[in-house]
């Protein structure tokens, strides 16, 4: 009898304990878009986080990229959805202004510490004295080159072009055309639709002696200096040097992947596309310099905490943020996704710097710039329209620049007026 009583009492006790334990478990939700390697990486990070924080559960939700921004924009204002959310850095300002994000508390994310530890490009995430989001990884650009095509053209694959002039000269040896002048193999891939608008905006414009925007990001400046010369250089690749034809093989990375292009400039996220392609003998070099100027474009996705997350959920969300921005998370992210660590202490380790594939991207980070987009999609479209005016309507570069600058200034003014 006594034994039975003890069993019942023990059962009741354990039951009540499990109830209190349950009450203490906080579940937070994490959102990102679907990209296989990124999903794998977050799943792994959640596992280590939950092991270290037994009271917290993280629910991982992801959507196709095409719907992602719409879902986030619809859910967060309605008080639904994620506690911790991944956003493109170019969207953050709009979300912050709409009071959808919570600032990262200064005692946990001291701005001075952040600035010391992270690459300087994250400064764009600082407003009103606090940081509103931090990246796990960053992306930069580099020059992919096809070693087999270089050899075939009598070039030395260990000496990829270091300057724009060398790029044009070497690509000129690789390009192949039929009798009617149609491109069969491109010397250089020209894809305004891809990353080329970044190449022009933050790299070519600077190398030709200007800068695309004023330092506060409120004024378009590419119509003054560097812009026209940079764009002329870019347009000449197809028209004057005939290194490719516009729209060759539809997508530039497709041309490079098919072994039909000698040189290709793209972001670090493209590494996975080319890795493991049979019979593609490729390597990576830093972006070519010009007039002695080296530049690069870095972009990133940040993690932020939603303003709808309060109380214990907010605390748990901040803990998860800490975890996502830890050194260990960054190294795991690099290994899983190929995206570069956001802290020099991790990224610039000897092992990473000397990596033949990641190395050139990581070195590029040291001299990279980040465009303070107000609406990345719109600003990219303005560049595409500008290129269409030059290539389809044969408009002089200077006139096309003027139209684009006017359109973009209007966009900036509308944004900063609000």
């Amino acid at each position: 009898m006594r034994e039975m009583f003890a069993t019942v009492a023990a059962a009741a006790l354990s039951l009540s304990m499990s109830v209190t334990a349950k009450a203490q478990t906080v579940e937070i939700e994490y959102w990102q878009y679907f990209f296989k390697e990124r999903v794998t990486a977050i799943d792994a990070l959640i596992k280590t986080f939950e092991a270290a924080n037994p009271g917290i559960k993280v629910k991982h939700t992801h959507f196709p990229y095409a719907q992602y921004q719409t879902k986030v924009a619809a859910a967060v204002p309605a008080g639904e959805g994620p506690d911790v959310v991944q956003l493109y850095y170019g969207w953050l300002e709009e979300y912050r202004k709409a009071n959808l994000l919570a600032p990262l508390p200064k005692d946990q994310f001291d701005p001075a510490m952040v600035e010391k530890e992270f690459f300087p490009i994250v400064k764009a995430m600082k407003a009103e004295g606090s940081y509103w989001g931090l990246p796990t990884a960053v992306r930069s650009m580099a020059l992919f080159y096809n070693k087999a095509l270089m050899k075939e053209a009598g070039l030395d694959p260990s000496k990829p072009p270091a300057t724009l002039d060398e790029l044009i000269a070497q690509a000129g040896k690789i390009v192949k055309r039929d009798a009617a002048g149609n491109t069969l193999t491109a010397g250089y891939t020209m894809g305004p639709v891809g990353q080329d608008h970044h190449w022009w905006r933050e790299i070519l414009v600077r190398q030709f002696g200007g800068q695309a925007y004023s330092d506060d990001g409120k004024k378009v400046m590419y119509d003054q200096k560097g812009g026209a010369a940079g764009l002329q250089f870019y347009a000449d690749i197809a028209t004057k040097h005939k290194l490719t034809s516009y729209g060759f093989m539809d997508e530039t990375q497709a041309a490079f992947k098919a072994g039909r292009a000698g040189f290709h400039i793209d972001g670090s996220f493209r590494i996975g596309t080319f890795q493991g392609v049979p019979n593609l003998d490729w390597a990576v070099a830093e972006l070519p310099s010009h007039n002695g100027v080296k530049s690069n474009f870095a972009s990133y996705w940040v993690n932020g905490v939603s303003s709808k997350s309060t109380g214990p959920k907010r605390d748990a969300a901040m803990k998860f943020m800490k975890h996502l921005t830890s050194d260990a998370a960054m190294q795991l992210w690099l290994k899983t996704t190929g995206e570069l660590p956001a802290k020099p202490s991790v990224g610039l380790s000897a092992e990473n710097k000397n990596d033949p594939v990641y190395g050139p991207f990581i070195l590029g980070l040291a001299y990279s710039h980040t465009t303070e987009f107000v609406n990345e999609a719109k600003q990219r479209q303005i560049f595409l329209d500008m290129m269409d005016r030059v290539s389809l309507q044969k408009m002089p570069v200077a006139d096309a620049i003027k139209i684009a600058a006017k359109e973009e200034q209007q966009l900036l003014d509308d944004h900063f007026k609000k």
Partner: protein
Amino acid sequence: MRAWYRSRTVGQKQAVWAWIFLALPLFFFCAIRLFPTSYTAYVSLTDWNLLRPKNYIGFANYLRLWNDPVFWQVFWNTFKYLAIGMPISLVLSFMVAYYLDQVRFLQGTIRALYFIPFLTTAAAMAWVWRWFYQPVPIGIFNLMLVDMGFSQQPFLRSTTQALGSILAPAIWAGLGFQVVIFLAGLRAIPETYYEAARIDGVGRWTILKEITLPLLRPTILFLVVVSSIGFLRIFDKVYNMTVDGKGGPLNTTRPLVLNIYQLAFTDYRMGYAAAQTMVLFVVLLAVTAIQLRALRSK
């Protein structure tokens, strides 16, 4: 209640039941059609951007639309799709149906072949055509042109050829449906009219003009209305065949519906998008009313 019902006449009782049965679809219509339409009308008077609460701004969106060159460009693009697409598709499908009607051998198979594109997923079809239009070494059209000794054509990468290049698969895909409807219409014309005409020694052209076409009026009316609405609402082909689904180059292929979609779901300018939706609604209403009137008279 029961006493009230009992004291009604048979006619009144029938009316009561008719209303009860009609109430469900009516409720459905209000909830699914009427409410969203009127809500759109309300949103069009606000500056809603999805992220922030709506502010009433009167007719500012409509004023902006009036002064927006892109709006007028896409507005005329939409009418180009209609003005070129509708007549071509009707003439083509009538010709196919007219001759197919006279063929007895394998008629069902041929009809099925015309109908298959109509059943194909628009997105998949648009992408296949997008690749057809590529420059060499990918695009089959340009490969054929080059083989025959002509120079390459830019097709989708041209401000003048792109709209026609998108219209071609749109017409092709809709052809099967129109052919089947025309065939049904042709079958419905009594054979005796043709016999009488032949006995009188009337030529084929006169038979076509005096008997077939007038008796096909209801069929033509139906197809004109349906295909007009279809071309006015063209979206999937443009979305899938142009870069980023933007209706380029330089907006030359962007129809109104795609413009609305881009404004609403990539720029989040819900209010402005709603204003353009209201314009599209009025245009569709007007076009349909005019066509019904024009073809119903006489």
